[in-house]
């Protein structure tokens, strides 16, 4: 059986996870805009409406605030909604229910309720969709206690983390980079989970730790492969969860390599790179550092339409190569 490794795309892996979740638990249902017969803007729900019916794969009107709130209400009262925002940018319209309600309800009511809610956010740039359809807003939600925020970087994790999210009693926000949807990779059959809150070492190395998120994990691996040819040995950590952060994984790696580069697509300042840098600076790993910490993040601009400008807005493999090489060689 194992001789043939089954490959699925990232989008197919998510779809399979949602189907398994619905098979396992009657309470699970999907809600979102155009997730039924259209199959979702990115074809992630695909034909699930044909298999599970429109009572469990619910097309909402274009009403993000209301839709998010309905999902919160259903979650609090015994259902297990998986709510899709058509683009992560539209989280801005649902923010009230996510931040003021879903995140705090259990706390405010002294533990009397939980909010077992999953929300999915297709995110990121690279599709030419310009400033209002290309943002990376995960750190916004990562700032809110009460939420869990994950960014699976592979088809394997997309499935396993979604199933972990559905099983989780608290609200889990999943940011899926749109350019990953077509990425193929090994995805085991059946039910399995990948834990929320655990980072993964994607590549072991001695000279430098790159902490990357989402699509930047693959870019960091590509950069590491190039630099291997120059004798530079890079460790790549896939953070996977940005709240709660796997501090220990980062600390342990930096203690080993003595250098840290953070790579993420979201706007550089006040983001995940600042948090990872600070956690190292506050820990015993600080004493092991041989060089200043470097962050590579998105430019301090909205995402432009022009494709060359768009590419220049977020870190690309050559940028990672240059930054990593300079860091290891002590160039400042």
């Amino acid at each position: 059986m194992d001789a043939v490794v089954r490959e699925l795309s990232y989008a197919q892996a998510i779809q399979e996870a949602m189907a398994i979740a619905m098979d396992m638990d009657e309470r699970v249902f999907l809600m979102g805009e155009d997730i039924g017969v259209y199959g979702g803007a990115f074809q992630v729900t695909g034909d699930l409406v044909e298999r599970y019916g429109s009572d469990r794969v619910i097309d909402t009107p274009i009403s993000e605030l209301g839709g998010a709130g309905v999902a919160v209400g259903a979650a609090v009262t015994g259902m297990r909604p998986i709510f899709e925002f058509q683009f992560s940018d539209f989280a801005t319209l649902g923010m009230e229910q996510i931040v003021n309600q879903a995140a705090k309800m259990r706390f405010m009511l002294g533990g009397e309720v939980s909010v077992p809610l999953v929300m999915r956010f297709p995110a990121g740039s690279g599709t030419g969709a310009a400033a209002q359809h290309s943002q990376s807003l995960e750190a916004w939600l990562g700032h809110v206690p009460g939420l869990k925020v994950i960014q699976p970087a592979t088809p394997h994790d997309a499935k396993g983390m979604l199933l972990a999210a559905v099983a989780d009693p608290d609200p889990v926000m999943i940011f899926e980079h749109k350019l990953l949807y077509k990425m193929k990779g090994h995805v085991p059959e059946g039910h399995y989970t990948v834990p929320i809150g655990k980072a993964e070492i994607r590549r072991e190395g001695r000279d430098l730790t790159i902490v990357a998120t989402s699509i930047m994990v693959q870019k960091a691996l590509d950069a590491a492969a190039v630099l291997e040819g120059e004798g530079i040995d890079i460790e790549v950590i896939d953070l996977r969860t940005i709240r709660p952060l796997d501090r220990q994984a980062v600390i342990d790696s930096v203690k080993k390599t003595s250098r840290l580069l953070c790579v993420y697509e979201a706007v550089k300042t006040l983001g995940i790179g600042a948090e990872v840098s600070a956690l190292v600076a506050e820990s015993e790993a600080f004493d092991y550092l041989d060089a200043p910490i470097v962050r590579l993040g998105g430019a301090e601009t909205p995402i432009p339409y022009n494709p060359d400008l768009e590419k220049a807005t977020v870190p690309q493999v050559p940028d990672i190569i240059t930054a990593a090489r300079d860091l290891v060689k002590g160039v400042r």
Partner: protein
Amino acid sequence: MAGASKAVMDSRANLPFVYRQYSPEQLREVLHKMYLIRRFEEGAEECYMRGLIHGTMHLSIGQEASAMGICMPLAEDDQITSTHRGHGHCIAKGAEVSRMFAEFFGKTTGYCKGRGGSMHIADVAKGNLGANGIVAGGIPIAVGAALSAKRMKTGKVVVSFFGDGANNEGAFHEALNMAAIWKLPVIFVCENNGYGMSTSTARSTAVKNIAERAAAYSMPGVIVNGNIFSEVAEASFKAVERARAGEGPTLIESKTYRHRGHSKSDRNRYRTKEEIEDWMANRDPIALFETELRDFGFIDDQGIQAIRDAVAKEIADGIEFAKASPAPDIAALADYVYTEHA
């Protein structure tokens, strides 16, 4: 209105509104612009297919009479807010297709200097405050522009275009209420093409006609056949008069249909081929208007051909202009994020 002679006026007395209200030259210009919208979008679609334009686009083919009719009574400095399906609004409000193509090609000569693309097309000089990537995003902005017009006593009116899908966003309801309580010079134009992406209004909206929403905000709610130019222009004319007179907002529901899919990635699974073909064959707004113009003696076949030829040339020239224009400098990435200080 260009002063038509009394004899001409009398002979037109039984014709629909626009044929009484506007001169033959003005009406021929409307046909010209409708063709310009149609051919612009066909041209953009073709450039997209050939990989010359990236991203996505939402075509308004089939909705040209709505854009033109609403903009007909507007003055050059009146303002509009538009939608993701905004090419027609932009041209109807006076934009040049060359600079629109340039924007789609990501060039510095484009209306947004290559930063916005199709979904953010604008022409601020002509009063178009911009298409919008956010459904219903432009509706409250139009109310704000109308507040400015009232406070600054500019006499401007503002039109907010949006789709049927937008009427279920909170922003729509909040905006209509404020426009009503403050009696602002704004006209809400719902271009109801039957679907928000794949979701029909029957599945998304509790009322049968979106114009019925007007009652909740104490403003007139008017339904027009959005594929008949004269009907749309007449409703817009009345709403503009009311707004300019300080009597407050109007909601116009313009019932129409988009021939193309929602965007470039639509497989049209939520509607039938027969439905699409029926609208294309029997209710094409350009064909309907052209027939009326011809029947009423405002244009002959030669005149129609001349318009088509002129439009074809404008489109070809526009694409050439876009191709030949410079791309933005990567070093200019951070331009326009904030206002430059001298």
